[in-house]
């Protein structure tokens, strides 16, 4: 009921239909396949902040690779609007857990990478890149190389880089997973500020329940491997949220219980 009301009037941006993913295992003794995703179906709506939440190693990264088009599903299909996603494309941006900046490029070089590769007019792409660098709070660091930045600052660059192509959807694959707890809390607030400023659809993957409830408009709980959708939750808490508010703790507890059952 709540879900019906939530999606009313919203346009589906990403539709994932019955996706399965198997990896071939080549062993000395046997050849076989390992199923990571088993019949995953979900929809992502325009400008919502969706968190894919599931236990570690449950196939979340495989799911993101397929949704973003970097990897093909073994069965099933993924659509962005009416177009099937079959390969990587600039309509979708990705922020990585390993951050994956180009170490030989400066902050500006990294942010400009996409627009430059596409051959966008230089002055225009430079202006937009500067805007994004300012947005993520890195003005003054344009000419710094990633190696001289802290983990949190690097991921800010990663976020700006993903925004630079103005994608319709942003996939964030445990983007703060490699950061320490303090930086993580700060980055969670930062990502919401950036999200409010540059409204895009965000698909955020995490295995941290606190992070999930803090950020999400909607949480999709995934089963452990082979994964599929276990349950969905609409999180209608006002932002900014408090980690210790009774409602917050209540939701958190409920999802944790459901996840334990899912395991």
């Amino acid at each position: 009921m709540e879900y019906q009301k939530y999606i009313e009037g919203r346009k589906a941006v990403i539709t994932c239909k019955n996706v399965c993913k198997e990896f071939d295992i080549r062993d000395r003794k046997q050849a076989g396949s390992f199923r990571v995703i088993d019949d995953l179906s979900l929809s992502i709506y325009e400008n919502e902040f969706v968190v894919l939440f599931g236990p570690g190693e449950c196939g979340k990264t495989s799911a993101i690779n397929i949704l973003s088009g970097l990897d093909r599903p073994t069965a099933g299909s993924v659509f962005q609007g009416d177009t099937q996603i079959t390969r990587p494309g600039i309509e979708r941006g990705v922020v990585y857990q390993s951050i994956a900046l180009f170490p030989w490029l400066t902050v500006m070089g990294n942010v400009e990478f996409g627009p430059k590769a596409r051959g966008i007019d230089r002055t225009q792409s430079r202006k937009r890149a500067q805007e994004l660098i300012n947005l993520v709070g890195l003005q003054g660091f344009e000419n710094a190389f990633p190696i001289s930045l802290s983990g949190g600052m690097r991921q800010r660059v990663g976020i700006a880089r993903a925004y630079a192509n103005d994608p319709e959807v942003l996939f964030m694959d445990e983007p703060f997973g490699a950061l320490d707890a303090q930086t993580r809390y700060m980055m969670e607030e930062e990502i919401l500020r950036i999200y409010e400023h540059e409204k895009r659809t965000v698909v955020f993957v995490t295995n941290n329940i606190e992070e999930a409830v803090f950020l999400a408009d909607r949480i999709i709980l995934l089963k452990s491997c082979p994964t599929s959708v276990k349950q969905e939750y609409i999180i209608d808490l006002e932002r900014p949220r408090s980690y210790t508010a009774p409602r917050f703790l209540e939701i958190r507890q409920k999802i944790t219980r459901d996840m334990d059952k899912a395991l």
Partner: protein
Amino acid sequence: MGNKTVNLIGKNSMRIVLTLLPIIGFLILWQLAAMFTSIGNLMPGPIQVIESLFISFAKPLGPHTIQMHALYSLKRVMVGYGSAVVTGIIFGVSLGLSKMFRALFRPLFELIRPIPTVAWIPISILWFGVDEMSKYFIVFYGAFANVALSVYMGIQRVDPVLVGAAKMLGCSERQLTFKVVLPSCIPYIFSGMQVALSAGIMSVVVAEMINSYEGIGWNIHAGQQTANMTQVLTGMVALAIFGLLMAAILRQVERRMCAWNTRNT
């Protein structure tokens, strides 16, 4: 703050002491051995060698002064090593990027590579004569495989996540090679170039010892022929300085070109 500065100076001078201590200790031990034991009958002490090195800047050893010998060796290294770096990078990149090229040339490369540089000297003289060309070839051979292999390894180790990120950002296959694969190989290219430089200097000495009338390697050979251990050791010390300088220059070049790869704060 002040405390920290003092600490830093303390650390720096400590490092200098730690660097110099074994070197000076070694030189003193050598000098004492030359003065007071039978080793002195066979070879000179460091003072005599260093003296001879300084004298040889003005007074020729054989046909040339030591700096002219060094220039001969330098020219051979530059030509042989330079061409090995250029062709080694091209060969390594081709090995890494083209399956066809790899299938064709990897086996041949692996077959030739184990043959030591010195074993090529007779053939190189047969092919290129006793002139400079045969020395260039020997240096080239000594350096080439090191460059080619490390570039090849660099291409194989390109981070797949970076490649994926570039594709997501709209990079075409062709752009991928020039914007991601090759830049991420640069540290490997430099580490190959460092190893190849040592190999190239080693090769030039071998070539000069066997087939030459000048160069630092010739000094060592000529000293051996005339039982002049001072000349042998002078040549060895000159080589140490020569190699050290070349490696330091290359490191500086790397630091300039690879600022992103060294902590630079």
